[in-house]
């Protein structure tokens, strides 16, 4: 398999090294840069498939670098930052980044995100094409209604029959909040008695299978005090 180049940019050399080790274990080729200018130089001379970049850096800070990269290339960019506030995240994404990971990162989650973005960028390059018939798309999730199979990053997810029913219900109505009673009635097709636990157990199991970090789910969310929903993602870049 052809090795894919990933550019890791951070002014903290130890962090760059740690990420490099992590990604090399996953089988990627890692290019290292320690400030924004260096990153741009490396990008100009190497075929890079994905960029991991820190925000606070000398010479050229991360967000400016993201903007400069975006001027020329459409490769996935994941921003790493010690700032965990919501506003920082929104700012990063609006600058053109594809994803945002807070420090200290969870190594497994970081690896999963890199893999997800690469898969979508390389194997599913036609992601912008209009969905085929019988295909429900939402971010990195695709549900094929005829096959009754959910794909995450193009890979089929193994779900039980009940879980598939729940996913189908939610994928057909992205963004809509379903109370536990309604989910129970429509999936189990009988009146619910204290359905909260049952539904929650299934939701948790599905999360384990589809979310990159099940503890901080991006897609399958609990709307506390109201119900459950699948977040409707912006049109993917």
């Amino acid at each position, binding site marked *: 398999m052809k090795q894919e180049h990933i550019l890791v940019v951070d002014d*903290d050399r*130890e*962090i760059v090294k*740690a*990420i490099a*080790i*992590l990604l090399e274990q996953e089988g990627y080729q890692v290019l290292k840069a320690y400030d924004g200018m260096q990153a741009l130089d490396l990008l100009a001379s190497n075929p890079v498939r994905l960029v991991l970049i820190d925000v606070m850096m000398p010479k050229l800070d991360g967000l400016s670098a993201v903007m400069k990269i975006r001027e020329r290339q459409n490769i996935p960019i994941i921003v790493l930052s*010690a*700032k*965990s*506030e*919501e506003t920082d995240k929104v700012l990063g994404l609006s600058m053109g980044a594809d994803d945002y990971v807070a*420090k*200290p*990162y969870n*190594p497994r989650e970081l690896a999963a995100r890199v893999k997800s973005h690469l898969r979508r960028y390389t194997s599913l390059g036609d992601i912008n094409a209009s969905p085929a018939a019988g295909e429900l798309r939402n971010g990195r999730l695709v549900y094929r209604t005829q096959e009754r199979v959910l794909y995450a990053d193009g890979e089929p997810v193994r779900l039980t029959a009940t879980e598939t029913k729940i996913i189908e219900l939610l994928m057909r109505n992205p963004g809509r909040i379903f*109370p*536990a009673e309604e989910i129970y009635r429509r999936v189990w097709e009988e009146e619910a008695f*204290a359905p*909260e*636990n049952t*539904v*929650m*157990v299934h939701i*948790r199991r599905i999360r384990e299978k589809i979310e990159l970090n099940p503890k901080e789910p991006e897609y399958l969310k*609990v*709307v*506390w*005090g*109201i*119900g459950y929903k699948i977040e409707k993602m912006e049109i993917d870049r």
Partner: protein
Amino acid sequence: MDTKLKKWKLIVSCTVFFFGVSLLLTGGAALISQLIPAGWFGDGIRGIVEEDYQNTGDFRNYIESRLADFIAMATGGERGTWFDGHYYFGGYSEDAFSETLMQGIAEEAADAVGTDSSDFLQEQYGRSGDGGEKTKEQREAEAKAYHETIRGDKNLYYRIICDGRELYSNMEGITWDKSSGNLPEGYNFLLTFDGEKVCITKDGEEQDIYGDGYYRGSPQWYVPGYRNFMTDEDMKKVQITMLAAGEPVYYSSVRYGKGGYVSTESRLYRIAEWVTYRRGILGQSVACLLAGAVFAAAGFFFRRERKEAAVKIGQFTGKIWFEGKLLVIIFLAAGLSGAMRSSYFSELQEAYASAGDGSWLGAAEMWAEAVFSPSGFLYNFSDVVAENPAGLIIFFWLTCLLVNDICKNRGHFFDGPLRRAVRMARTAELKQPFAVQTVRRFVCMAIVSIVFVLAALLLAFLAFEGITNTMETILAFFFSLTVFLGIYYRCISGARRQAEEIDLLAGQIAAVRSGDCLEKECLPEDSSLRQLSEDLAEIRQGMQTAVGEQIKSERMKVELVANVSHDIRTPLTSIISYVQFLKQEEGLPEHVMDYIRILDEKSQRLNSMVQDVFAVSKAASGQLPVEMEELDFGKLLRQTLADMEEQIRQSTVTVKAQIPEHAVLIFADGGRMYRVFQNLIQNALKYSLEGSRVFVTLKEEGGSALAGVKNTSRQELYAVGEFTDRFVRGDESRTDGGSGLGLSIAKSFTEACGGTFAIETNADLFMVTVGFRIREQR
């Protein structure tokens, strides 16, 4: 030298101006006073410049009515009234007014002689009082009596001939050559009536009477002979000759009845005299006006000095107390009203007399009509002016001084001892404390009331005893009532103002209480609550500063925490990453693996602590963003329990949920509240006695939804207040996981969502209650 000249100039300018305006005023007033009664543009102007009395309307009227009388006497018909002298009424038939007047005069005369009025009339004039149809004899007797009355007045000669027979004449021994046209000595006016036409010769020249032969009203002669005023058959046999003197002399005759008398005067003399008098007045007026114009012209050259002088005079009069000026104003008003009243008074009497029925009301109505119509007013005004021109001048100049004073001393016109006293009293009052002011005001009102009642009683007593008359009593009563009401008004308006100021102050205090520290308005300087208001403003300022500093320090704190947590996270990232790699190493000795496990645990705990500290500091400073929405509190609790099912199953305790099935709607941020209950339940799982039960309940009480988490503590509990203090935990050793910020986060998150958070301990029972207001279901 220069200043002296200037001073002289000032004086001269003033004097010239004074005389000029005074003379113009006198002359104008005299002229107007003559013009108004004569009628502005009719006979008036022509009348007063006319030299010859025979050219006046009065003369013409007199001659016309005499001619009418004489024709009536000759034909033996009814004739007009015959009061030669001051009264005359033309026309061939009597009208109602002349009848009434005659009757009135007859009654007066009869009163004087003590006989019946009709008798008097009968006797004096040969006519009956009832005015019924008279016999020919009676009419002849009337004519005869009239002839006797006027025949002595040689200013007017007359001869009345009927059918060639001379009936009446006072021309005994007077002859003149008719054909030559020479009149007797001293007579220059000849009127002859030949039965059809009238011919008038004046100063030997025949006058054109008929013009084109049609009568069209004054100033044409109202005599028979016009085509639209023909003579009748009776008149055709009448011939009349009248001679009027060029310069009438005084004549009077008195006729005595039974003890009474009627005097008559020569009307012609009066007319001539009036013409002379009017000419005299005219001359005076014109002289005055001319002199005034000269002075006014001179004053025009000194107009700049005059203006300066006006300023100087204003400065001088400005020093006079207002009380003095008030006297002048009263004097002026009294003079004006007095003058008007004296002239009106006679009219009132006349009106009373002519109202007939003797009622004052009717008289007053007629009087008011006469006096207050514009012409009536002018007539009276001219009377007043004609009688007292000096009064007019004084009135005018005093008014001028007053107006000048008002214009030049606008700000301090009212200055005087009274005003100074009022001001001093007010200043002294302001120095008193608020309470004293209020009490004094009420005491003052009480005293004034008592004094007023006493004064009224005294007045009533005086009036009852006859010491004062009604007018004086009424005046005194109204004076004291005015004073009483004035003082009452001052007290009440003062109290009202104070009340309004208290309101304002209360509003300001309320504003401070609600946290508005920006408004800096104070009460006005002359307010009795000024000091309080200033104090309040200072408190406000102090609060504002304090609040501002607090906000600033809170913000700095949050910034500090944010920076520190960021700085901690960067090395922490490396630690966690490399510990992770260490964990993957294989073939390490058992004890090293143990060390690595400890490192892993502690680094994770440090991470969660950093995050919690950051969250708490944000929430505490009110900067925690919340997304409030309507949600079901019960569902939130059930979801939280379901979410934590695994943890609960792994723990040694059991969780009992007592949550109502129906929706309990509250308004809160679901994510934040999940975090709150997650912390609370985690705490309960962690610190509960093994095998005990944790109760999660939801109750509705009043308008609130109260969620409780109760557990039995494994260790002895200490004082309540410390639990939510940051970093306080069930045990002091701090060796287990968790940041120690759980309760603190729960509390600050709840409060950020607008809920209440309460901790209660009872022996080993630990209870947390989270309360929200229930929203009405739509």
